């Protein structure tokens, strides 16, 4: 039985988005706005000696680091202050923002930018992870190119390996991935009554406000307002800050509204991508194959500056033993600096990389000991009460067995797995995973401190006040359902404006599978309080602050405790056929069964499952994104970067198993990211069965598969 709230309603924002009525930032007519565009370094690494800008016609402006006011700081306020908003002397990647040109005619701006020349002293770039490890061109960061390093261990790993009857070792690699949201990055900035306003496409209005505040200095008031956002996938978590901070400096200096909307090719070439990874896994086994210990060396490619690498690395490391309870382990995680566009946020945020390495290694181990991989994995499943990798606790029921049973029923996994042993070029694979909901560690408590409110006007109209944005994942539907259900009001009648930091409380960024579980819960609790205290004809507002669920603890120094309050869980199955003439793979079936707590809206959840599976299969099979010798992405157009079409993969057979979570609204947990956590691993496992070889590298494009088969 599914919960009553799960029955779908029409999305309140659906009609406007489908019909073209919704106004994205490019649709807003800022009549007097000047066109603003960045100019960037045209070399990968070195020191700027001089920038020569052609003479500017009247009404055109050139802005660079010298225009940052002395009260402000020429730095992007992300997690660490290492990345200048405008490059001053040092250049660490080709495409780094040096300045911006603005003026009334986009053609003139384009011509000025094409006329800029930069004199510089070149330094040899470190483009790949191997270049970075070899400190090519000298260290880019510190003495060893390490942006971040963290370790976790439990038990005596060395002893386990020295006593092992067998060891299994593998190195697993994943590539860059482009978010390819439908709407490119775009912002408008202007100054009004001494306040700097930023309006545009953003996942995190308060992050934008913060970043702009930091670069301008404390005496300026700043406001960020979301325009309807045309997709994000994490790509509009960091970039609106990277774009907004320099744009705000320019708007303030010039005193006119500025409009900056990226061309698709600029967006694809220079905005942040998913961190590539290279993860080495070693396991120690006894004679029967049982795992005694696991040793993981996890490297992610952070690009030229820190951005969010530490947090991505933490999620990768904290996810590295997945759904398994291993007694002895050692994990070392490193984020390396390279001369490429700084890697950033992307749906899954380190977890898809870690799960790929882990699940492919479990497949490899099971082959080594001649066991069926699902049987091999089952021995180690986490259950309620078990310790997590960080020494926290699994606090809720784990329903993996039920989910696997449902997956078997829908996909006939075990039956097919057996029968494909005798059928060449066919295979089926399964991947299991969990995804910590909300910010890692005590981020929610210590850093975000979310607040959300339900406001009842005197006329009885109810309004949701939250900074969460809807970029397809559905809060404009689900938040209304939560509040409406509690108050007994039809969801469609509840107001929920596009977030404006002058109006709504800071409910935190729209990231990390936290929106429903953290913000939705605050809204549920606010609605409950409002209901119990409802006074007809009065204006009432209930504001709720986040509190850590009882019993949770976290030690940020030792990285010990409950890294996540709870987890979403998933089982993915993928079936493939391989063409031995062309090494093309064809996905003939895909299934996803998830524990999302309770679905607030079945169609919203199904939409996430379908899209997440396609994106994960694209990541595993097609989305090849490589860099040239200067660290520049080679696939910079939609003709060259291959995201799947509806013809590439079949519809995902999808289902959820209800497992209500006490501190989620109506029992709901986060799920927007975990639908991207396992599809690629299930796909690669299926290809391994089809070809009978190890496939430790994604994307597993035909060229890569041919290389594997010819070895």
């Amino acid at each position: 039985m599914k919960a009553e709230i799960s029955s779908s309603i029409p999305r309140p924002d659906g009609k406007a988005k489908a019909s073209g009525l919704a106004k994205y930032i490019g649709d807003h007519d800022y009549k007097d706005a000047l066109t603003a565009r960045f100019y960037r370094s045209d070399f990968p690494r070195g020191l700027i000696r001089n920038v020569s800008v052609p003479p500017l016609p009247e009404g055109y402006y050139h802005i660079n680091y010298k225009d940052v006011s002395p009260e402000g700081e020429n730095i992007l306020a992300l997690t660490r202050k290492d990345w200048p908003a405008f490059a001053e002397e040092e250049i660490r990647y080709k495409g780094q923002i040096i300045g911006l040109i603005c003026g009334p005619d986009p053609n003139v701006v384009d011509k000025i930018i094409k006329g800029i020349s930069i004199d510089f002293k070149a330094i040899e770039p470190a483009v790949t992870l191997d270049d970075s490890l070899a400190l090519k061109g000298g260290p880019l960061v510190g003495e060893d190119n390490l942006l971040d390093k963290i370790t976790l261990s439990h038990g005596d790993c060395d002893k386990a390996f020295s006593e092992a009857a067998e060891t299994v070792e593998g190195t697993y690699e994943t590539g860059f991935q482009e978010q390819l949201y439908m709407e490119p990055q775009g912002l408008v900035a202007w100054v009004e009554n001494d306040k700097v306003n930023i309006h545009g496409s953003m996942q995190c209005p308060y992050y934008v406000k913060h970043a702009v505040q930091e670069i301008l200095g404390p005496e300026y008031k700043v406001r960020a307002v979301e325009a309807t956002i045309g997709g994000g996938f994490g790509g509009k978590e960091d970039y609106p800050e990277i774009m907004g901070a320099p744009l705000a400096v320019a708007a303030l200096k010039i005193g006119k509204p500025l409009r900056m909307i990226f061309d698709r090719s600029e967006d694809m070439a220079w905005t942040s991508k998913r961190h590539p990874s290279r993860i080495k896994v070693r396991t120690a086994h006894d004679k029967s194959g049982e795992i005694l210990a696991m040793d993981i060396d996890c490297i992610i490619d952070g690009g030229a500056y820190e951005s969010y690498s530490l947090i991505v690395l933490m999620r990768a490391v904290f996810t590295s033993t997945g759904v398994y309870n291993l007694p002895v382990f050692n994990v070392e995680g490193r984020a390396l600096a390279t001369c490429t566009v700084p890697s950033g946020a992307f749906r899954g945020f380190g977890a898809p990389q870690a799960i790929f390495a882990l699940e492919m290694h479990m497949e490899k181990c099971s082959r080594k000991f001649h066991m069926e991989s699902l049987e091999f994995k089952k021995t180690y499943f986490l259950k309620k009460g078990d310790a997590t990798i960080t020494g926290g606790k699994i606090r809720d029921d784990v329903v993996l067995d039920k989910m696997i049973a449902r997956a078997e029923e829908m996909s006939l996994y075990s039956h097919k797995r057996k029968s494909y042993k005798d059928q060449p070029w066919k295979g089926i694979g399964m991947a299991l995973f969990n995804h910590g909901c909300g910010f890692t560690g005590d981020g929610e408590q210590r850093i975000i401190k979310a607040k959300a409110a339900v406001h009842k006007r005197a006329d009885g109209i109810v309004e949701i006040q939250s900074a969460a944005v809807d970029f397809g994942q559905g809060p404009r539907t689900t938040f209304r359902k939560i509040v409406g259900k509690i108050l007994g009001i039809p969801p469609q009648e509840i107001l929920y404006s596009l977030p404006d930091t002058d109006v709504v409380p800071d409910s935190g960024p729209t990231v990390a599978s936290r929106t429903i579980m953290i913000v939705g819960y605050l809204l549920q609790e606010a609605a409950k309080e409002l209901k119990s205290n409802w006074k007809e004809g009065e204006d009432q507002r209930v504001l709720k602050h986040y509190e850590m669920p009882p019993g949770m603890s976290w030690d940020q120094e030792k990285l010990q405790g409950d890294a996540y309050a709870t987890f979403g869980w998933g089982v993915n199955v993928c079936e493939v056929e391989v063409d031995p003439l062309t090494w093309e793979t064809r996905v003939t079936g895909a299934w996803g069964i998830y524990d999302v707590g309770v679905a607030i809206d079945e169609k919203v959840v199904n939409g996430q499952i379908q899209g997440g599976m396609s994106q994960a299969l694209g990541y595993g099979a097609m989305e090849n994104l490589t860099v040239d010798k200067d660290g520049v992405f080679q696939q910079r157009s939609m003709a060259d970067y291959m995201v799947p079409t509806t013809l590439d993969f079949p519809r995902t057979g999808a289902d959820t198993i209800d497992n209500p979570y006490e501190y989620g609204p109506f029992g709901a947990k986060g799920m927007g990211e975990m639908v991207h956590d396992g599809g690629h691993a299930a796909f690669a496992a299926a290809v391994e069965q089809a070809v009978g070889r190890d496939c430790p590298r994604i994307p597993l494009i035909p060229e890569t598969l041919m290389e594997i088969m010819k070895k």
Partner: protein
Amino acid sequence: MVETLRPRKLDEALTWLSERKALPLAGGTDLMVHFRNYTGTDSLIVRPVLFTDAIDELHSVEDLGDSLKIGAACLLSELENNELVPSLLRQAISQIAAPALRNRATLAGNVCNASPAGDSLPPLYLYDSHVVLASSSGTRTIPLVDFITGPGKTIRTDDELLTHILVSKSQNEKIYYRKVGTRAANALSKLTVAAFAELENNIIMDLRMAFGAVAPVVVRERAVEIIFIGKSIDQVDLDEFRQAYAPHIRPIDDQRSTALYRKEVALNLAGDFIRKIQENL
């Protein structure tokens, strides 16, 4: 602003080409990409653009008995559904991009774009196609193989319009077409292979094979084809067949694939063509 010309008569079009140095646009699905500039800025096209779509006489597919005369304004989607057009060519066309693009793009445009990865080209090479070029001073008919001289390069002069493509009609029993693209639809080709054979009592009376995207222009080697013509199909050695083509397949590495992959797979598919005929004997 770009000046646009949309003649209804061919004469008018040819006059504008010579007098105005107009740029012919036959669908524009490649041309628009070629002249792409930063969003929001003016077009990079400085010449007047001449649309060919309103010229009635370029819209027909004429049956000349032993060949077809395809007008330069015929859309890919029209040819895809025209039973006069050889099925091999129709197969190739049906895998170009997606329906929306095929409703704008033309065969003439695909030919004049002269991309090594132009999907209609390998079948057209198989059928010894010719192109008709017209200008105010007359017309000339040229073999397609001489018309395309390199990637994006043809011998068409600025005052000439490609008006027709002549394709020999053929009743081939054994046809083979395989596009290896970057995805299932809306994909550019990593490579393509098109082939046909005519058999009489298992003897190869004719055999033709063309490869796209594995060299600067489409690869078709009559000298190789002749080696196998006259032989019995069941005596063709697959390795020998592959080896005969190997020196002619000279692909490059690019953002879509690798030279190694293109070469290996092109030869695999060449062998597959022969093997499939042998298996169906």
